[in-house]
């Protein structure tokens, strides 16, 4: 696992796997296989496909995570939105991306990127905030989280 120098609220997890890329691709995009490591779901490797993942990352989450395939490149990458419903209050939006790269010995380098906690106007606002003198009170990380809230409201 390694954190890149990306936005502060980007989660990056890297793995090197013995299995070849196509096998990894299947494990990431076939519902029965995804169910075995993530949660029951109706994922399909089609652009725009909407699906649910019946998992919750924490208490307070309600129901299934709502997803939509945002980008797809068979055997290479898949990106989907990740909307976590809450028992109370608005749903929390982010984005999950899997990137598959072949290794020299026939295995796979798999990278997970969970980001989009601050998109569109939120990102712009966070940058605007970071670009000016904001004093010691608000760290860049805090601004990014603030941007999450903007994103939710957008």
């Amino acid at each position, binding site marked *: 696992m390694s954190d890149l120098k990306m936005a502060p609220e980007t989660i990056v997890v890297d793995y090197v796997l013995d299995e070849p890329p196509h*096998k990894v691709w299947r494990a990431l995009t076939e519902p029965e296989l995804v169910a075995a490591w993530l949660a029951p779901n109706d994922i399909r490797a089609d652009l725009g496909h909407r699906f649910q993942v019946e998992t919750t990352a924490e208490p307070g989450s309600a129901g299934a995570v709502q997803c939509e395939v945002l980008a797809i490149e068979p055997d290479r990458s898949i990106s989907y939105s990740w909307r976590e419903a809450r028992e*109370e*209050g608005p749903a929390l939006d982010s984005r999950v991306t899997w990137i598959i790269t072949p290794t020299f010995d026939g295995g796979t380098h798999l990278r997970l990127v*969970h980001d989009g906690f601050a998109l569109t106007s939120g990102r712009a606002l966070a940058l605007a905030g970071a670009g000016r003198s*904001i004093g010691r009170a608000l760290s860049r990380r805090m601004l990014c*989280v*603030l941007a999450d*809230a903007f994103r939710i*409201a957008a």
Partner: protein
Amino acid sequence: MSPEFDIFRTLADPTRRAVFERLAAREMSVSELTTGFSVSQPAISQHLAALRGAGLVSERREGRFAYYRAAPEGLAPLLDWIDRYRAFWPERMNRLKDVLKGMDQ
């Protein structure tokens, strides 16, 4: 009501977000804050009350004047929420490894 909900709900209002942004830059009085907004001072005061209620803004009194500033520690529950995913994904990826081992070619 969970703290996260309070924070999200509070910042869902665009004017309130703008108020929070301005108070993140520096401490201000209500009248200073009202300058530049097409919103009345009582309305700004209401937004401030909501922000304070959510722990996002703190107040300092000086005689009959009050000054406000952003309280970034109020955003901590949101950081906690994101951090839970930092633990969640490696655990799931370990399971994914097991699934791969058990798959047919």
